[in-house]
């Protein structure tokens, strides 16, 4: 009974969030809707006993990915009106895609062997921990696909850096090693000039100055 209500609450949250994502006029509100969707999806995962997946959804999607979205939205200058221009020409194509997707979902639901069953949550009995169960298969049966997935992600990361990185020579950067290794002689010249002769008078020629003159 309580799980049923929780299920209703979480699914309503998902629907509300998803509606906000597409309907919100302000992109910030849209991202907030997306976060709401993620949180409620995590709630559903936990309700169905996949607590590891649920918490990971919060950590990865809410804690990292959505923050990046928010960051980009906050820092770029968006013209909301321009964003909405060009909406009408794409409407028929969009509707077609939506209709196809809906038809597929309805067909799949009608022909699937799954029955409408009451919501079930895993009890606190001696079930194996999610992490243990996942680890058992992830590092044995699916070790190769797991590694390949890792490599693909790494490639994507390296690719993103290579594509966007541009070396900038006009920026002054701090070189900590150079700072720490700097000696007194490199920075300071001790002189005892005659009055009116200037700081680098010829009669005073310490090592540091001599080096610089040679170079």
């Amino acid at each position, binding site marked *: 009974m309580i799980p049923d209500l929780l299920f209703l609450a979480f699914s309503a949250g998902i629907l509300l969030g998803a509606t906000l994502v597409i309907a919100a006029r302000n992109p910030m509100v849209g991202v907030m809707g997306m976060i709401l969707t993620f949180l409620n999806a995590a709630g559903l995962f936990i309700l169905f006993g996949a607590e590891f997946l649920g918490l990971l959804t919060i950590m990865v999607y809410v804690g990292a990915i959505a923050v990046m979205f928010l960051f980009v939205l*906050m820092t770029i200058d968006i013209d909301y009106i321009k964003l909405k221009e060009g909406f009408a020409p794409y409407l028929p194509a969009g509707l077609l895609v939506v209709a196809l997707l809906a038809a597929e979902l309805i067909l799949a639901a009608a022909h699937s062997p799954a029955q409408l069953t009451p919501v079930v949550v895993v009890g606190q009995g001696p079930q194996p921990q999610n992490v243990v169960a996942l680890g058992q298969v992830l590092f044995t049966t699916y070790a190769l696909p797991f590694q390949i997935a890792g490599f693909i992600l790494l490639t994507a990361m390296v690719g993103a850096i290579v594509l966007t990185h541009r070396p900038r020579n006009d920026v002054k950067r701090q070189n900590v090693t150079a700072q720490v290794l700097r000696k007194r002689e490199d920075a300071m010249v001790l002189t005892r000039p005659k009055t009116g002769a200037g700081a680098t008078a010829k009669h005073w020629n310490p090592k540091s100055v001599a080096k610089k003159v040679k170079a």
Partner: protein
Amino acid sequence: MLNLYLTNILTPDNLWYLFITVLFILLIAVPVLIGMAMLTWFERKILGWMHLRHGPMYVGPFGLLQPFADAIKLMFKEPFLPDASSKFMYLLAPILIFVPALIAWAVIPMSETSQGVWVLANINLGVLYLLAISSLGVYGILMAGWASNSKYPFLGAVRSGAQMVSYEVSMGLIILSVILLSGSMNLTDIVHAQQGLWFFIPAFPAFVMFLVSILAETNRHPFDLPEAEAELVAGYNTEYSAMGFALFFLGEYIAMITMSAFTTLLFLGGWLPPLNVAPFTWVPGILWFALKVLAILFFMIWVRGTFPRYRYDQLMRLGWKIFLPLSLIWLIITATCVKLHSENGVQPPAPADVKALDQSSEANPVSLGQAA
């Protein structure tokens, strides 16, 4: 239909369960809130002594009632709503900071007696829960900065967001090495695994990195760039006044206590006494726990009194170029050592156990309604 639902849910058993849970929540939340109030006094007093001042001393004995006077003052201030702000998000932001800070305490075990562990929810993924909750705190800050529609809060919010995301990565890796050492993600089990040897001794480099990371994660000195007074007025909370401002403050200081408690559980043996012999074991566990949390809080304030503020590029360099590689190397070292001494770490289950695991995962899941 609705009537049926209500009669099924509002059974005496369920109501009693609800009542007990709320009571437990209050038992945890009220001391945490009072502790937060006292922490502000503690910080001002310690900083005062470090500056050769007295700190608060007029309200109550030793100025002990100063935080409550401040709270009353803040409650009666005018809540100011900037005209250009996005009203809903502006009001939501302080709540989004305060709530995650408080709900993190649901999984923190504080002591253990013969009756059991003092914790609201002893879940198996306690560490992961804490990480997930602490990553939510950044939203309140980002929203506050954006909704205020003002330059300084905006800059503070962007800084804070980048900072928290950066340090979460290496924090996660350090925590992973502790999980490897203890072989569990359950905070209670992690403390039990430290019986005899607290993890800060074998994992000292990780302990030091974690201490620095929690300073950055809670936006404390010397990493308090989001609210650097000299550059940003007050950072993301510049436009806030009255209780909105108070909630930011509450959330920040509770996050400090939470992170100190987390460090205590991961590295300092939680409620365990330093030596398992007579005079130490007479002291109840909750006192040891409080003492260790207080020690880390003192460290955080000590750092504030000692170090100058980092520059922003230095902060990012420390996070990404130093802490991330170091914590990765530390994770590899830990994993190798644990593998070599596998009796301390994760045990590969015997083949018979694996079969049992497979079966039990499919076997009759119990619905919560039936169980209740």
